């Protein structure tokens, strides 16, 4: 009973506060003034991203191609054998691709 009274009184206060609020302000040329002040949009330069991707690819290639694992995998692949090295390399590449795909999808969802 007391709780209902409290709730009712809360609703009264809410209603009073809403009544005392004048609501949205009329435009009266405000929007036009803002649009006149708007600066040209800065395009985000793409070169840092491209340079990062290139540097990453070069470093990755250098570290992979000089490793004995890669050579063993490559030789096994050439003779048509599913060696452990070949399987490890293929699994790693597949995992990295899936990771990149997941990241891309998550970013696209955010947008």
């Amino acid at each position, binding site marked *: 009973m007391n709780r209902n009274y409290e709730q009712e*009184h809360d609703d009264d206060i809410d209603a*009073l506060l809403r009544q*005392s609020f004048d609501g949205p302000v009329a435009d009266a040329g*405000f929007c036009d003034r803002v649009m006149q002040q708007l600066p040209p949009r800065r395009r985000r330069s793409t070169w840092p991203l491209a340079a990062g991707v290139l540097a990453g690819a070069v470093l990755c290639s250098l570290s992979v191609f000089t490793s004995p694992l890669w050579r063993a995998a490559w030789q096994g692949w050439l003779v048509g054998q599913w060696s452990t090295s070949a399987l490890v390399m293929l699994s790693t590449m597949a995992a990295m691709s899936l990771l990149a795909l997941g990241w891309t999808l998550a970013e696209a969802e955010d947008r």
Partner: protein
Amino acid sequence: MADSAAEARIDQSLVARVLLGDDRRAFEQLVRRHQGMVRAQLCRLLHGDQAAADDLAQETFLLAWRKLDQFRSEARFSTWLHRIAYASFLQACRTKSWAARHAQDDAMEHLPEPAPAMDLQVDLARAMRHLSTAEQTVLLHCVQLGMSHDEAAYVLAMPLGTVKTHATRGKAKLKTWLSAWKAAASEETVP
């Protein structure tokens, strides 16, 4: 609820048009859709100083234009705008004379209960001024601007619990100060 979801989708598509196609007309539509509430929010925060509110609102939209690529859909676009507006207001308070006025408001928190007056709205306005700045701000956002507690917490950068506490305390104080009106209204209804 469905209306607000539809409004949010329209905002999102307008934002996407600005970001992907550098579409100024889409941004103009966003300004037209939200300027009224952003200016009302700032006008209330500045105690009715409409000119200052318009200056801050303009600054808010220019900031939104510059930072639009930072808008993630974790909040509605309108909520994001209100957050920028509130941050601009706080920034202005740090540098301008409004801060002094707010300090006075805080000092008025413990003033005696106002005597019953003829006009309920006048009494409400007086009672609101006697609330602390934080309570006034929370009630403005939660009740008058119609935000949820979560949204108000996002806009005001306050913990959710603090927002709820200020809302409850503010309403309790208003209830006490305006209880004479409630009693008078009950007496009038009894034959």
